[in-house]
């Protein structure tokens, strides 16, 4: 280190702490992001010379019916994950937030799917949904709902919901823990006061707990939106767009364009569109949290 100090001076040494991080960041994040924008103005197969085509790729994106469909599916998927992951996670947190025996273990068990890979979860649920030996149809049959059984992932009317449920299963535990941590920070006196005022469980939840969890819900919504736009593994392992593009989302379509059809330039334009969406949501959120008053209990 003495060598570096004489070479760069006391000031220069400080930059040595940043340079490795910045080099990685520049080469594998910042420059590729810029290049995507650049490539989006070219027609390019990945081999040979890219041909400048201006905004043709962007015009094509707006005319691309499957891309439009994938965008709508993506929005539906995000709304679905918000309901399933955040809704179920919040419900679980409210119920599990008790000092009953075994509840610590139950919280740990509830969280388990979060640590698995999405591929393992997707493959497992391919089997859960299997029309022949899947356990879901077996359960439905055993409770007399044979008429509901079907090939869940092959049926255009339910395939997207079926994939959304898998996401929900994998991540509900994550949101449960976020809400559980937030609930732990709510002082007991608030509940005691409400209880003394004769408030029922439901009133305490809606009038005391939920208002205090508002920031956590907003944050969860942002995670659902950004996570939902970049979701890929669960769709790729389960349906990859089938049936009839009913489970096509933007990322699966982008990867098909880039690597199956060699439309690298067009795929780059679609990724730029995706990033703009994600950035827009993030900025709206950051502005909001910048303004928000810190809640003092």
């Amino acid at each position, binding site marked *: 280190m003495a060598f570096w100090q004489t070479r760069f001076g006391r000031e220069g040494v400080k930059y040595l702490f940043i340079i490795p991080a910045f080099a*990685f960041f520049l080469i594998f994040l910042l420059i590729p992001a810029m290049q995507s924008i650049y490539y989006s103005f070219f027609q390019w197969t990945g081999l040979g010379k890219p041909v400048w085509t201006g905004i043709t790729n962007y015009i094509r994106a707006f005319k691309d019916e499957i891309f439009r469909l994938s965008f709508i599916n993506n929005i539906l998927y995000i709304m679905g994950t918000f309901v399933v992951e955040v809704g179920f996670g919040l419900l679980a947190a409210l119920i599990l937030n008790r000092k009953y025996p075994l509840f610590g273990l139950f919280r740990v068990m509830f969280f388990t799917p979060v*640590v698995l890979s999405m591929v393992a979860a997707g493959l497992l649920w391919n089997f*859960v949904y299997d029309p022949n030996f899947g356990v879901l*149809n077996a359960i439905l049959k055993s409770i007399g709902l044979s008429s509901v059984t079907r090939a869940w992932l092959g049926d255009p009317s339910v395939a997207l919901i079926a994939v959304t449920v898998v996401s929900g299963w994998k991540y509900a535990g994550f949101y449960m823990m976020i809400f559980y941590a937030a609930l732990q920070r709510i002082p007991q006196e608030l509940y005691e006061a409400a209880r003394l005022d004769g408030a029922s469980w439901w009133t305490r939840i809606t009038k005391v707990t939920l208002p205090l969890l508002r920031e956590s819900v907003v944050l969860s919504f942002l995670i659902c939106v950004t996570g939902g736009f970049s979701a890929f593994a669960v769709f790729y392992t389960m349906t990859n767009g089938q049936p009839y593009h009913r489970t096509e989302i933007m990322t699966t379509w982008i990867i098909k364009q880039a*690597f199956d059809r060699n439309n690298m330039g067009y795929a780059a334009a679609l990724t730029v569109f995706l990033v703009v969406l994600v950035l827009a949501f993030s900025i709206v959120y950051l502005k909001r949290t910048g303004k928000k008053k810190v809640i003092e209990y």
Partner: protein
Amino acid sequence: MYTRGSLPRKIGIYVIVLIMVGLMTYPLIWMIYSSLKTDREIYLFPFSLPHEMQLDNWVQAWKLGNLGRYFINSVFITSVSVFLVALISSMAGYAFARLTFKGRDFLFYTFLLGLILPAQVLIIPLFTFFDKIGILNTYFALILPYIAWGLPLSIYIFKSFFLTLPEDIADAAKIDGCSLFGLYWRIMLPLIRPALVTIAILQSIGIWNEFLLALLFIYDDELKTIPVGLLAFYGYHNVNYKLVFSALSITTIPVIIVYFIFEKQIVSGLTAGVLD
């Protein structure tokens, strides 16, 4: 929280909780006991436990698939990436928290941009770049971007941790003639061990499970990580249900065991990026 309450109410709550926990865990339990059944049993009696434990399924899955190789690849790629992310980002986090230099805040916010950039936008340029320099289909094609992508959140967490340390420690060390790097390495780093654990867990799980890059940048079966390897296994044997159940069990049970051992650290590590 609501410790008071009548007995029927308590029983009701336990029933609801057991149903919820069952929803989360039953698919995994079903996976494990199905992996010990014959194909015929799986097909005819999806619910029931194995008539006789077919432990041979696991042996076959291990032999037929390249699972051992996928494990080695995942362990190597994850450990190298996580070690370097922790080292590089703790240095930067320290500088952003405790050193003053020109452009510090601007640089920090530039890094934060990386927090909201979806990986998809980087795939195409990185693919062509790696192809050009000849590291596509090598460990480097995964390790290098994994390090870079792990940095923004890690730097952010390290910075907030370093800020909690009292400043006079640094002053005392400086008087003792400690170099800047010595100060970081010998004094600061040991003090932020909890942050190192958090980062190690967060990055390990993320990298161990990463799919998009691992799918697109590696095509040699010998170099595949577990998620992509599992998918390949499924591709070859998807009508051989017992083998797929076995491969899924072999690869997920170790993860679940590790999770149950380090449950506290893992839960707080995984939610750390969100809760601060």
